[in-house]
């Protein structure tokens, strides 16, 4: 049994009830990252399962980032950016929308639960939305359990 598997089961071989999902979030510098920052400044409580990666635009988040995150042990991936019409670069998130709509379906086609890969629009003022999205996603992914698909054996 690999090191990764050992973490997921307790001594009795049962799924570990204390297991916490590992979620990678790709956050647009201009909206979602600011929104997350505001959530922190406002002292909002949310699960610490999401590790944010700051990208200049949600359009910078390449589908390969998502695949690589899954390979390297993420149980869920979130891509979040500005609402359509609010892009700092005018049109970046319209491309994000087309690309990830398609990509989400392709992942589902490959056998990955669509709840493990999600995309959201979160503006810089939407700190409560950021908190809610992260909380909801952490709960959903926790219910799904550890992701084994696409994962590299460690």
């Amino acid at each position: 049994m690999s090191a990764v598997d050992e973490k997921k089961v307790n001594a009795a071989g049962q799924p570990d009830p204390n297991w916490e999902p590992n979620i990678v979030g790709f956050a647009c510098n201009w909206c979602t990252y600011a929104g997350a920052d505001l959530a922190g400044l406002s002292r909002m409580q949310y699960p610490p399962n999401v590790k944010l990666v700051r990208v200049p635009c949600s359009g910078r988040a390449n589908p390969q980032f998502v695949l690589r995150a899954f390979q390297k042990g993420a149980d869920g991936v979130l891509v979040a950016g500005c609402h359509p019409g609010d892009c700092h670069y005018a049109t970046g998130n319209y491309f994000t929308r087309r690309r990830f709509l398609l990509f989400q379906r392709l992942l589902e086609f490959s056998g990955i639960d669509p709840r493990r890969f999600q995309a959201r629009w979160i503006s810089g003022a939407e700190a409560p939305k950021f908190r809610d999205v992260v909380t909801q996603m952490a709960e959903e992914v926790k219910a799904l359990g550890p992701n084994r698909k696409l994962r590299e054996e460690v």
Partner: protein
Amino acid sequence: MREINAKLTQEMGDLARDLLASGEVKGVFGWTKGSRWYLTPPVFITKPEEADQLCYDEFAVNNLTGLLLDFRDSQDKIAIFVKGCDSRGIVRLVQDNQLKRENVLVIGVPCPGMGDKGAVTDHRQAQELPLLAKCLECRYPNPVLADRTIGGVTVTTEPSAAPSGATAEAAKGRGVGSKQADRFAQVEAIEKMSPDERSAFWQAQNEKCIRCYACRNICPACNCRECIFDSDKKNWVNKAATPTDNAFFGITRAMHVAGRCVECGECERVCPMDIPIMAMNRKLIGDLNELFGPYDAGVKPEEKPPLGAFKLDDPEEFM
């Protein structure tokens, strides 16, 4: 059929000889007879006297358009023979700025429907070979663009057109394009599986892949000057042929040709491990049609591929 092929081969040779002798083109991409009766591999000729090497029959299955990438930085004019499916590859390369339209002389040929050499067991079968699946599902049996044509083939950008030209009767008789409606059958079958079955299905495919990159190398849509899978940057693309890295390759390859795949089916044909690559391509084509409106890649040069454009009122599933 044999006489028609012989006549087409003759026409091809004459045209290539004239083009090379007059200096109109510097070289000609075509097909030649291979070392077996069921092999008709690509050939590149540069001298008029080599025109006799050209050959055309139901095994001239290779899409030659990807080979034009060798001349993307050249000012030489090159002639190329194209069947219906191949001709969309030319549009693809021109749209991607890999090729100047004026530097290529496109010669449309009528397609008899290509025989499946995988079914060869015996030389006596010569007339009995089944058609390749991609020919049964063919939607563009006639070239979508051509500067010259041989064998009386018509040039049309309309899909579903019946095969035309010298081989039309034979092609219709063998069923070219008769299963157009079934081209998403495999995608639908996979979609009906449960998520775990789907995952197991692709896992089995990914275990087979040997990362030979044949699918990438023959694809007219895979035309990056530097492919990310040739990159030696650490921690970015893993070169090991493990199932997870093969999945990474397969999904990335599919996303890179999404909206640009011309459905020539060459990736799947050249795959030595029989991976159903077109299932993934077709899944993306089906979704793109459904989400962003019907689009056939490599037909109209002025149309932008769906992932290279957007509309303000695109469907919205993100909250």
